């Protein structure tokens, strides 16, 4: 498994090429957008729900199942009438970015069965905690102590996971 941090490519970009964005810039933009969504665009209740990959994916799935099969699965109050579409948007936006910069190519760097189970485990943990890594930080920023505890748990998990990966790689 590739766990090394890919350094930013410093190759010269063509003038008409795709724009360069740093993680710092994305952090600032996404922070503003996440708060804007909750404050001005009715992405509430619950509070601090602007961006969440896990909860929004759950809302979209459960809303679709509810509509087609007539069930009553859990959706957040904001998604009762029509679901939030963040996951679709991210997929479309990333597809736009990868095709416009010619970075789209089929590959399979990992075992798909393994990542399938990791996906299920991450979704279950996220729904238990009430947010994926993005929303846990967003809840902390909104001043919710519970969100801060969840974020601390997440940081502990990442630290332990990293040490586990390093131990396994150097064994």
């Amino acid at each position, binding site marked *: 498994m590739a766990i090394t941090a890919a350094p930013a490519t410093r190759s010269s970009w063509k003038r008409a090429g795709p724009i360069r964005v740093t993680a710092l810039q994305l952090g600032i933009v996404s922070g503003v957008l996440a708060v804007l969504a909750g404050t001005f665009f009715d992405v509430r209740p619950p509070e601090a729900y602007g961006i969440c990959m896990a909860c929004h994916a759950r809302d979209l799935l459960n809303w679709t199942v509810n509509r087609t099969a007539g069930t009553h699965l859990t959706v957040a109050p904001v998604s009762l009438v029509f679901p939030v579409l963040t996951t679709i948007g991210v997929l479309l936006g990333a597809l736009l970015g990868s095709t416009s910069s010619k970075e789209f190519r089929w590959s399979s760097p990992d075992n798909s069965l393994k990542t399938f189970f990791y996906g299920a485990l991450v979704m279950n943990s996220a*729904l238990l905690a009430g947010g994926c890594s993005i929303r846990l930080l967003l809840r902390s920023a909104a001043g919710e102590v519970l969100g801060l505890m969840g974020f601390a748990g997440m940081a502990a998990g990442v630290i332990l996971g990293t040490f586990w990966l390093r131990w396994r790689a150097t064994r």
Partner: protein
Amino acid sequence: MTAAIATLVIGVILGYLGQRSRMCFVGGIRDFILVRDTYLLRGLIAFGLTAWLAFPILGLFTGSRPGPFASSDVITILLTVAGGFGVGYFSTLANGCPFRQHVLASQGVKSSMAYLVGFLAGAVLFHGVIERLVLRFLP
């Protein structure tokens, strides 16, 4: 409907920028520990600080602030911390946070597509089995 359109537009912006910047919300801590690289960590800290400042500043325009939050008991705190730990640990093993996996799936990475299928299957599993077990065996 406003929320759906707004989140779709925000998602497209974030997906594009996330593809250009290779942002990952768990990779920052991982890279810092492994190779002392702060590129992704800066994005994580910038997101938290910007949101922390933007909540009160944008709240001035609408007169609304987030909260009040529901009071939490010990069980809720334990579940949140345990869930957060799981998110961090399994995301590190899966080589990226859910946001990064969505971006990778749009770059043609098949294992990340399998991750997304597992992601949705996990939601079915949670609401079908896990949530009921938690509610039954906890007071």
